[in-house]
Structure formats: C-alpha cells, structure tokens
C-alpha cells in the first residue's frame, strides 16, 4: 500500500470516527447496560436487595406463561398483519402504479393512514370500539364491549395495525413495481401469457428483492408492536405483546432485572428475524443490487 493510500485510509477512519463514536454511545451502551441489568436481581422497590444472579432472570421469564402468552400474541399479530398487508399492499401498489388520472391525489390519499401518528389513530379506534362513544361497537354486537374480549380485541388490534401500515407496504412495493421493465411485460403478453401469468412469472420474480425488503421492515416493525395495544387494551385480557409486557415490568413493576431480561430477549428475537431474512431469503439492503454487494 502506498503512503498516499494509507494516509487516505487514515483520513477515512478519522472522518467516520465521530459517527462511529456516537453510534456506540447511543446504541451499544444501552444494549450492554440492559444485558448487565438482566443478570441482576434489581427491583427499585427493594433497592437494598440488589444482587448478581446470573441467568436466573432468564429462567424466570422463559418459564413464565405470561411471557409465552405475550410471545404468542406478538407472533400472531405479526404473521397475520404482515400477510394481509402484503396482499392489500400489493393491490394498492398496482392501483397506484397504473393510475393515470389524479395520480398524485390517489397516492397522497392512500398514504394518509401512515401519516397519522399511531397513538392518535389508536385513540380514535378505541373510541370507535367503545360502547357509548363509538359507532363500531354497537354495529358488531348490540351490548358487547369488543375491546374487553380477548379474541375481538386482538382482531381490532390487528385491524388497526393493517389499516395503519398497509400504505407503507404499498409504497415499498410500488418502488419494486417500477423496476419491472414494460418491455418484459409486453414480450410476455406477445407470447400469450395471461395477466396472472405475467404477474406471477414476470413481475413477482423481478420484484423479489423489493418484496423481501418490505417484508423484513414490516415484520420487524410488527414484532415491536406497542402503541396500538397500549391505547386499545393496555394489555388486559391477555392481549399484551412482548414490548407491552416488557414496559409493564419495567415501568409499572419497576423490576429492572426482569424487564431488562425481556428487552434483551426481544432484541435477540429481532436479530434472529433479521438474520433469517438476510441470510436465508437473501434480502439485500434497499437500493443495493447484486453487483453492489461486497
């Protein structure tokens, strides 16, 4: 390596050092600190009983039914909402892609739900589904309170999630649709491919990277679901997600040990999901092509 190149490289390190330092300070430190907390009995209610207890908190959480119920609920919400969003989002993307008249208007209006702050939207859902204040509660059953029954509450949470993030899914998929060359579609139709064949044999394969990125983003997002549940049910009737239950143990229960353990477990699960998508399905970073990979 020449002297000039080495110097250039040193400069490169120097230039990115501040950013790297900030990243370590704001992300690595809290993660390491919560791992450290998760290895202790540390309850703010009993400050004098703080002690190092190894992996006991993990045993407590992993053998607890509340945790697994929350985990199941989170998985259910994630799988159903992402699956429905993919289908709806694809439909919306196709419409937005093909619209000729009022394209801007169509695209803007489709994005409105995504633009509304989740908590605000969640409050309007809550009022809508509460008997007395809302129009939806009485529509479904005359004297029921759907947010207080587990099954209907979960359905409402999933519905709110879908309503909220389908536009985001559509946006990412629309970017993918733009990648499909018109010539390819024309050639396929010349060869006598039906619309469905063109969709499945031409469009989907070309769009695969975009679909995978959209799925990855939404899966990670959905797994961390919090706001909707916090506002709609506050986790009552076994509708807590893992984020919700971690919040309850940390903020309401003041149990830093157990709460941090849950946070670490959520972190690990998110890492596993990302790993599966990137390594097994071959999701690439958005914008990068195969050639761009190193």
């Amino acid at each position, binding site marked *: 390596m020449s002297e000039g190149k080495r110097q250039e490289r040193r400069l490169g390190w120097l230039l990115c050092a501040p950013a790297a330092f900030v990243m370590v300070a704001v992300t690595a430190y809290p993660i390491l600190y919560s791992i450290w907390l998760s290895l202790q009995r*540390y309850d703010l209610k009993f400050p004098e*009983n703080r002690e190092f207890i190894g992996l006991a908190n993990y045993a407590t959480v992993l053998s607890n039914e509340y945790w697994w*119920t929350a985990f199941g609920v989170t998985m259910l919400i994630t799988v159903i909402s992402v699956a429905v969003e993919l289908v709806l989002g694809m439909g919306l993307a196709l419409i937005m892609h093909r619209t000729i008249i009022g394209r801007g208007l169509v695209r803007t209006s489709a994005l409105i739900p995504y633009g509304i702050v989740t908590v605000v939207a969640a409050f309007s859902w809550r009022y809508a589904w509460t008997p007395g204040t809302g129009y939806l509660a009485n529509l479904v059953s005359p004297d029921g309170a759907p947010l207080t029954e587990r099954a209907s509450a979960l359905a409402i949470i999933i519905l709110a999630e879908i309503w909220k993030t389908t536009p985001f899914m559509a946006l990412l998929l629309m970017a993918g649709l733009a990648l499909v060359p018109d010539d390819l579609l024309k050639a396929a139709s010349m060869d006598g491919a039906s619309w469905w064949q063109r969709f499945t044999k031409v469009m989907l394969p070309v769009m695969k990277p975009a679909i995978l990125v959209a799925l990855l983003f939404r899966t990670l997002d959905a797994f961390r679901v919090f706001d909707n549940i916090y506002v709609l049910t506050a986790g009552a009737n076994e509708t807590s997600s893992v984020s919700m239950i971690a919040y*309850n143990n940390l903020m309401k*229960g*003041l149990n830093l040990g157990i709460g941090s353990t849950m946070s670490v477990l959520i972190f690990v699960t998110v890492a596993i999901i990302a790993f599966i998508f990137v390594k097994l399905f071959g999701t690439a970073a958005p914008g990068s092509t195969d050639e761009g990979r190193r």
Partner: protein
Amino acid sequence: MATNDQHPQRRTLRVRALAAGAAIALTAPLAACGSDDGGVPVLNFYNSPVENMQSVVDRCNQEAAGKYKISYQVLPRQADDQRVQMVRRLAAKDDSMDILGMDVTWTQEFASADWIREVTGELKNEVESETLEPAVAAAQYEDKLFAAPNNTNVQLLWYRKDLVPNPPKTWDEMIKMSQQLKAEGKTYQVMTMGAQYEGLVVLYNSLVASVDGNVVDEDGKKAVMDEGAVRALETLKTFATAGVTSPSFSNAVEDDVRRAFQSGGGAFQLNWPFVWASMVQEAPDLAKNVGWARYPAIDADKPSRTTIGGSELAVSAYSKHPDLAFEAIRCLRGPESQLFLATKSGQAPSIESVYNDPSMNEAYPMKDVLLDELKTSAPRPRTPAYQNLSTVVSAELSPPASIQPRQTADSLRESIQAAIDSKGVLP
C-alpha cells in the same frame, strides 16, 4: 434546500421566529413552575386532579404569608398513570417534587424504596391524634409513619328501598333476595366491579378481611393464602355464578356500575360513596328510593370489613425544602381543608371530628354508616410489591365465575410469593 427556497433572507427570518417561539415554549412552563419567586421557596405539590384543590392551595399559601408558596401540579387522571409518572421522577432523584399526593396503596412501595421521608414532629402528633386509626395504619411502613392521610374511603351497600324493605346483612342473604326478585320478574341485579383491575382486588380483599383471612403475612414477606382466603374465593365464585350479577360484571369498573344502577338496572349496588352525589343530581327520582347500609358480611354473626381507600400526602426524599413541605401538609390536610373538600368535592375526610360538622349532613347523609365501616376497615396486603401483587391477583381472579377455590388459592400463593421476591412477571 436552497433550490426550494429562493429567498434566503426570508428563510433566516422564519428560522429565527421559529427558534424564538421554541425558546418561549420551552421556558414558559419553567416560569410557571416558578423556581424562584422573589426568594419565596416554591413547594411543588404533585397530586391527582381534584376539584377545588386549587382553592385549598390558595388558602394555604395565604396562611403561609410568604414563608413558602405551594404550586399545584396536576397529575393524570388514572391512578396507574399517576404512579408511573411519580415513580419515574423519583427513580431519577428529581428534586423538583416536594409534596406527593399518593394513593393509599403506594405507601409501602415508596417507603421501602426510600423515596419518601418519615413523618415526625408536630405533623406526626397531629396525624396520630386526630385521624381515623385504619387510615393512619395505611400510611405506615414497618411501624413508622410515612404519610399524612388526606381523605379516606370505603364502599357501601346501596339498595332499592322499593324492592327490598330491609337491606341484606350477608352475601348469602343478598343473593337469595336477588334470586327471589328475579323469580318475581322484578329488577334483581347485584352490581359491583368485576373487571380485571384493582376494583376486583378490592372486592376480594374485603371478602378475605370479613372472615379474618390473610393473603400475605404480617411483614409482607410471605404469601399465606390461608383458609379465610380460600373461603373468600368460594364466596366470590358463588356470587359470580348465582345468576344475580349483570352480564357485564366481569368487565365493569366503578363508573359502569354507577351508571347501570342509576339507570334503574339493579336492586343492589356495592360501590364507593361518590355514587350518591351523581345519583341525586342525575336520577333524583331513583335516589328517593335508594337506601344505604353496611357492606354485606360473609358470616351472619361477624360484621363485614371493607377495604380502605383514599389518598395521603408525603414528602419526597429528594425535596429541597422538606421542613417547609411538612408544614405545608399540615395546612393541606388540616380539618378546614378536609371539610372544604368533603362538601365541595365529595372526598370523605380522614379526620373523625370533621364528620360532626353540620354541613356534612347534606353532603354525606350516609356518614354514620360510612364512619362505622371506616373504623373497622381493612388494609390491603401490606407489601412494597403491592402493585405487582394486585396485577397478578386481578389476572388470576378474572373472570370470577371461573375461580376454582383450592386451585386458584394455590396458584395465587405461588404468584404472590414470586411478586414479593422480584421474580414475578407482570402480564
């Protein structure tokens, strides 16, 4: 950015205006807190929103005559949100909180965590000499006084005099009366709080105390769940499955119950005294036919014991003016303030002599029964882990119809012990 904005000068102006606006917005609340008001120490009083509390604060400020100035900071409406906000600040050793308005259920926790100061001196003497004994007990942790009871509360039995001439004395009696009414095709429901929250724990705790049962031991270090606790589970189960509750019993909270009874849906209501004022105002015709009585017992020969509620005032361990804060509490919770809030805002006083004031007759026509119940009221399980305990108990008892007394008692004992040992996982 430059391409979007053709007028750099105008842009700078706008940025300046924004910055100025932000600066004002940021400093305004600080100014309102008044960290320094001409040398008069400001005591920040964090309390739940109470009607007319500001008048009490104003009067106390006037009496202090420049010695200190209390500034009323209103907390969120829900008890859970109030606690979370306080706890978050206390854990961060926030020294801007001086006087804390606490729910009775927080005393143990806050004292154990060293967040509040022990009450000593004059205030202690005052509290111990004039306050109802159970309210004082609720403000103690390990035999030391940590807060001054502000107001207090117990539930009563409200019944329809036009349907039942004499109020039932026991749960069995009440269930039978209700079934009788049902058979006659009359209004029959017994309404009370059965949703999965603190209200259900209060109901259960009253049942346990009525048969001298125990959920935790004296020191709050061990889960007990003795025979009495099991009997209480049996009673709760019987009540929930006797066909006398409203269909929404397992979802009902205080206000649902109040409204349902007020609209004529029930023959009996077990609820706090606040229901009376709204009944007189919103359903005067019904109110004429409503009577009140002592909360039903389980055994006919043993009077019931009901769970005590209410709020108290404590001084934060991080306050910069603890002595002044204690002094201010003497005014905030003094007889004059309690009487004022009792008649204007419906808060039940914790000082016994206040009940003798003639103006109490109108605001609290049920005061004799209330005072009677207050004197024998039962505390909730005393442990710093009460919040966690309450969460697991309400989860296990919900819905009450599904209780299997023995089994539920065993699993409760386990999860309560886990909560006390910081191993409890909250749902």
